[in-house]
């Protein structure tokens, strides 16, 4: 019995060191990636040397391969289809430059399509002129790290997403840089994912887009100049921390769009120069703690059906409107925030203003009903109106106050 066991372990040992390396270059024995994949067995490494490879529909099925590009070999799909189609466990792809993925209305052409796979990593690739970038479906336990994705999306109907995740879980998406696609990072039915330190700029629709994805975290990302920074829709238990939302400008632009969200936390985020920093629609039990809202058009716009949202210790600095509010107070709470518009006093010097602050101005109510009235922003008549409303509120919800406005900017 012992001998048999030894034999088997020896066999296993030999078979693992037998994992070989296949080198692909124009002058080598193997000059195409497709051929290399055909020759390779599970556990092999394919090393692709610098050069231009005009290949597409490279299928890797059931083989655990390590594909390494040296000096960014270019894989040109010539607008014909998907470059890599992978259905395998324990594989990795590193250091490739994949370009020219054609737009299609019938199939989701991607640079790297991963389906029903586990334990994989896709690292440090460059994708340019693409339709979809990295497309994952029904996969789990993957790392997508350090990829640079560039494209020139023109219209929403004719463009794809940078990193598109569907029906997957436990992914780490880190240090990627996505520009000029439709949605920078898109998650649908994706659970338990970490999205960390990515840069999403100048995307046509959203920098980051969640649909029906629960228990995700996104931290330390930068969202700049997208149609909307981040859209979180129909999801639960999302953690959003230390992100920066900047310059999401436009007639229907948001820093962060929340729709039908429950039990989320927002902490230590910075919203700067957005048309609308946060638009919340139908959100419940969301904690907004220690965020900075600087020079936005609207800092927070709350539409209907929001219950038990808590805004605590945030800084509201020089926004045109701090809060725009529709509907009843619904147990939403503002407390201990710093408002740069606050004009009250602090007689007992405990750092808390003695007069409650009303963040909703009559003018924001007026602009809600007659949007053209925005042209009167900061005029003296509006100042008088706001003042008289502040003294005796008639139109704005009377209970909507911050009872403990801070006298000094909150440091966190």
């Amino acid at each position, binding site marked *: 019995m012992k001998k048999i066991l030894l034999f088997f372990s020896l066999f296993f040992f030999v078979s693992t060191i037998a994992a070989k390396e296949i080198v692909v270059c124009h002058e080598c024995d193997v000059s195409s990636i497709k051929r290399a994949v055909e020759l390779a067995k599970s556990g092999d490494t394919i090393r692709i040397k610098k050069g231009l490879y005009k290949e597409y529909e490279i299928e890797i099925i059931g083989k655990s391969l390590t594909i390494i590009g040296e000096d960014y070999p270019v894989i040109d799909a010539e607008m014909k289809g998907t470059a890599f189609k992978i259905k395998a466990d324990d594989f990795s792809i590193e250091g490739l430059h994949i370009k020219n993925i054609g737009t299609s209305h019938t199939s989701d052409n991607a640079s790297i399509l991963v389906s029903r796979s586990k334990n994989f990593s896709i690292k440090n690739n460059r994708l340019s002129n693409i339709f979809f970038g990295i497309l994952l479906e029904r996969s789990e336990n993957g790392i997508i790290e350090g990829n640079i994705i560039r494209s020139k999306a023109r219209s929403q109907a004719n463009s794809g997403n940078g990193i598109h995740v569907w029906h997957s879980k436990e992914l780490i998406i880190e240090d990627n840089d996505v520009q000029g696609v439709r949605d920078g990072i898109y998650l649908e039915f994706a659970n338990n994912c970490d999205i960390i330190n990515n840069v999403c700029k100048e995307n046509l629709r959203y920098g980051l887009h969640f649909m029906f994805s629960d228990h995700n975290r996104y931290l330390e990302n930068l969202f700049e100049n997208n149609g909307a920074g981040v859209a979180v829709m129909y999801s639960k238990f999302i953690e959003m921390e230390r992100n920066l939302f900047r310059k999401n*400008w*436009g*007639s*229907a*632009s948001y820093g962060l769009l929340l729709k039908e969200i429950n039990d989320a936390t927002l902490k230590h985020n910075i919203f700067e*120069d*957005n*048309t*609308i920093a946060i638009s919340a629609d139908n959100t419940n039990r969301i904690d907004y703690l220690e965020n900075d809202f600087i*020079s*936005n*058009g*609207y800092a927070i716009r709350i539409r209907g059906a929001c219950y038990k949202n808590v805004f605590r210790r945030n800084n509201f600095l*020089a926004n*045109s*409107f701090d809060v725009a509010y529709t509907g009843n107070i619904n147990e939403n709470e503002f407390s201990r925030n710093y408002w*740069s518009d606050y004009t009250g006093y602090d007689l007992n010097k405990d750092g808390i203003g003695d007069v409650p602050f009303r963040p909703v101005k009559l003018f924001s109510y*007026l602009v809600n*009903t*007659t*949007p*053209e*009235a*925005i*042209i*009167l*922003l*900061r*005029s*003296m*008549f*509006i*100042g*008088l109106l706001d003042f008289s409303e502040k003294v005796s509120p008639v139109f704005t919800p009377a209970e909507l106050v911050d009872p403990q406005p801070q006298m000094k900017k909150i440091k966190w």
Partner: protein
Amino acid sequence: MFKILKYSFFDLVRSSWSYVYFFFYLLLGTTLLFLNNNLSTAVITLMNVIIMLVPLIGTIFGVMYYYNSREFTELLLAQPVKRSSIFLGQYLGVAISLSLSLVIGLGLPFVAYGLFKSPAIWDFVMLLITGLFLTLIFSALAFNIALSNENKIKGFGFAILMWLFLAVIYDGLFLLSLVYFQEYPLDKFSLVATMFNPIDLSRILILLKLDISALLSYTGAVFKEFFGTPVGAFASLGMLVVWVILPLFRISRVVRRKDF
């Protein structure tokens, strides 16, 4: 005309009122910067001041100067000088000395604070340009009112009323009509309505530099598309120029026939 301009200008520069305004702006700029510690927010606060105070000061000063220099004017009228050049010269003297106290009074503290190294410089330049235009417009309007009213009290009353109308009441009526007709498309109307009030027009020009993100919100896009383009910018600056020229034109027409 230039000789009269020169006389009125130096007369005004020597008068204590110019210094009062100069020191007022100087104090205002310094305290704002000292309190805010931030150029961009100081520019916002300053905008409110410019939009309210500059027209008011221009109006009062214009009316006051006209009534005070009546004897000098009568003396000049006896000389072989063109009538329009007497009054235009006096007007320019007032407008230029006011503009100078505005530019130097506000400019000094900001320059000392490090304006030239700050990105807010264009906001500030816009602020000064609109301030200058408002001075020119409102002192011209004040001269018109004073010319048409021999009675000092009545003249002052009308001048203050005109300021109140353009600064506050106009916006109230504007807002009322917006709310009343909210079922109709109003963007064209509101564009035109802003064009007809120099204070609103200046406010929008400054706002486009500052609160651009709010103006860009859903319907604001229309305004942005108009005022943000070179055509819109020229149109609104042109409108300000028209606001200066029309009252001046009326001055020269009225004084030609007026029996002093």
